């Protein structure tokens, strides 16, 4: 590999040209050595410093805040142990938040995967105007969730919404998209899918194009038709990518806030909190009526642990699948 054979030369310090600056050779060599030694750390330091201050520290400090009586206005109060946790865990609204978050997550993720893979399969062909179609599916990605939510909130209006009106024309009774639990989750999931299906379609398309075409040729020789090829070659080869997409949408999906927050003008997730998510609950406890940072932190920390557990489950599934793949001698995606 070119990497290991040539790089040591970089570590020898900047070789200077003695003919040009004869007097300063010694000094500039010392300087050069420091330059070589310290520069690598210096260049990565902005990331580590800023991430530590604005990402890692707040997340860990959340645990500290959660053990205190801590108010938005009054600031830090007494150490209360796990009181905030026991309080929060007794709140029906907390459990509603967890339920709604997972429900919206599942309702959005599963159809999105199916849709994205199907559309990607359509794009993974010798289409005319390839770029046009690819850009077309990506357009919703640049629309802010706030805008999507305001538009879809009106589309799914219970009284005069376009969807209920259209349903009425085919003889279906109006659905309480805002009033009922499951319909509101479907409406919010549709906003998530509107924005992200195209993005993930392109992720799957890229993965499909990396599938060696001789696998399809072999399938054709074995008499497989297009549908059979899709299910027996494409889908199995996409498994690592499916896992990757599921993991990324888990991290984002379990923190969902924008879409449900703006689904109505009140922003509390409905009169009986039928679509209030966990992150909305954090906001309500911390910045709403209670203004309790201690309790909000307790909710955040619980949610963090849930995401961690889901992540570990995802990871173990990924490992099992990737070891399956290598045992089958299938081409594995290089993830570094």
């Amino acid at each position: 590999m070119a990497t290991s054979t040539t790089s040591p030369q970089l570590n020898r310090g900047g070789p200077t040209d003695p003919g040009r600056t004869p007097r300063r050779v010694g000094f500039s060599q010392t300087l050069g050595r420091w330059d070589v030694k310290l520069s690598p750390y210096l260049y990565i330091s902005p990331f580590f410093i800023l991430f530590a201050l604005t990402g890692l520290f707040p997340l860990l400090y959340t645990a500290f805040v959660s053990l205190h009586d801590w108010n938005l206005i009054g600031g830090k109060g007494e150490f209360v142990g796990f009181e905030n946790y026991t309080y929060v865990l007794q709140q029906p609204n907390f459990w509603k938040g967890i339920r709604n978050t997972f429900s919206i997550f599942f309702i959005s993720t599963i159809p999105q995967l199916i849709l994205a893979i199907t559309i990607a399969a359509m794009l993974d062909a010798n289409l005319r105007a390839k770029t046009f179609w690819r850009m077309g599916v990506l357009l919703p990605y640049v629309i802010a969730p706030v805008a999507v939510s305001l538009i879809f909130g009106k589309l799914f209006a219970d009284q005069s919404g376009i969807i209920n009106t259209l349903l009425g024309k085919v003889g279906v009774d109006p659905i309480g998209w805002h009033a009922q639990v499951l319909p509101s989750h479907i409406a919010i999931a549709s906003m998530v899918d509107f924005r992200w299906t195209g993005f993930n379609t392109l992720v799957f398309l890229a993965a499909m194009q990396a599938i060696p075409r001789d696998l399809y040729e072999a399938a054709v020789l074995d008499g497989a038709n297009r549908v059979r090829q899709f299910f027996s070659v494409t889908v199995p080869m996409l498994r690592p990518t499916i896992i990757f997409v599921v993991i990324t949408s888990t991290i984002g999906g379990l923190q969902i806030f924008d879409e449900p927050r703006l689904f109505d003008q009140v922003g509390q997730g409905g009169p009986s909190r039928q679509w209030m998510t966990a992150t909305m609950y954090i906001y309500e406890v911390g910045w709403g009526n209670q203004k309790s940072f201690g309790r909000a932190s307790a909710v955040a920390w619980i949610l963090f642990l849930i995401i961690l557990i889901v992540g570990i489950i995802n990871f173990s599934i990924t490992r099992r699948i990737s070891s399956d793949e290598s045992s089958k001698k299938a081409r594995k995606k290089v993830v570094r």
Partner: protein
Amino acid sequence: MSAPSVPVIAQTAGKGAARAAARRRHTKVGGSERRPGWVSYLILTVVLIGSILPLYYAFLLASSNSAYIAQHPIPSLIPQGEFFDNVSRVLNSDIQFWKALGNSIIVATVQAVFLVFFSTLAGFSFSKLRFRGRNGLLVFVIATQAVPTQLGIVPLFIVMSQLHWTGKLIAVIVPGLVTAFGVFWMTQYLESALPYELIEASRVDGASMIRSFWHVALPAARPAAVMLGLFTFVGSWTSFFWPFIVLGPENPTLPVAVQLLQASYFKDMALIMAGVTVSIIPLIVLFFVAGRQLVAGIMQGAVKG
């Protein structure tokens, strides 16, 4: 990727070029053998209409008025012609539209520029320089991609209020100056796109590390840097949760301001939709200019994992 000449390309032009060459060969073979029927075009057209229709619906409502909306749950596909009246009402409403627009431009631009710079700097170091702890630190960066940092908002808010930054743009900008993804992305790209020989040549010429970075690594990183900048800009422009918490209505970004429209004028749907429409126009324009790069960026990122 086992075609005989690919390793040769890998040696002469770098891993990235080899991968690209191999991919090109595969697509060519695949493309000529698989011809899409009209069903593909039909499905794709339906998808395309599905992407555009909600946006067009917003525009239709934005060009009508409350009375029309009440009478016509399904609006006519031809706009009603009150769009500019409604837009001017948005501009004159108390959501401070111009200020919000300016704020969004500042926040998104500053974040994109700095994030790209810091990421390229770190990516240069991780991909081309040798130092103790390199692999461990890189693994740490990759692992932090999975950290849900949004859950640290309470302490982040406490810190911002102690710095007296709440309500100021800096409170939104600073937490978005670096991402693990950005560092990872630039590391991946520079690893294949920047040959060691180029850096060595500049070092032999007596250039300091920072000069090598500025004159060799940065130009080589440009295609990936542009994509990263675009994604950061879009992400920053569309983000709502943190700006909503830390800025408040006096000094909003665009999503925060548009959301205020719904809170204060919720009966006036034409006004709200006019606000929504003007707020999404800048990114739609950007999309038409740079959408190709976004598409290419997503597809490259996906292949690299």
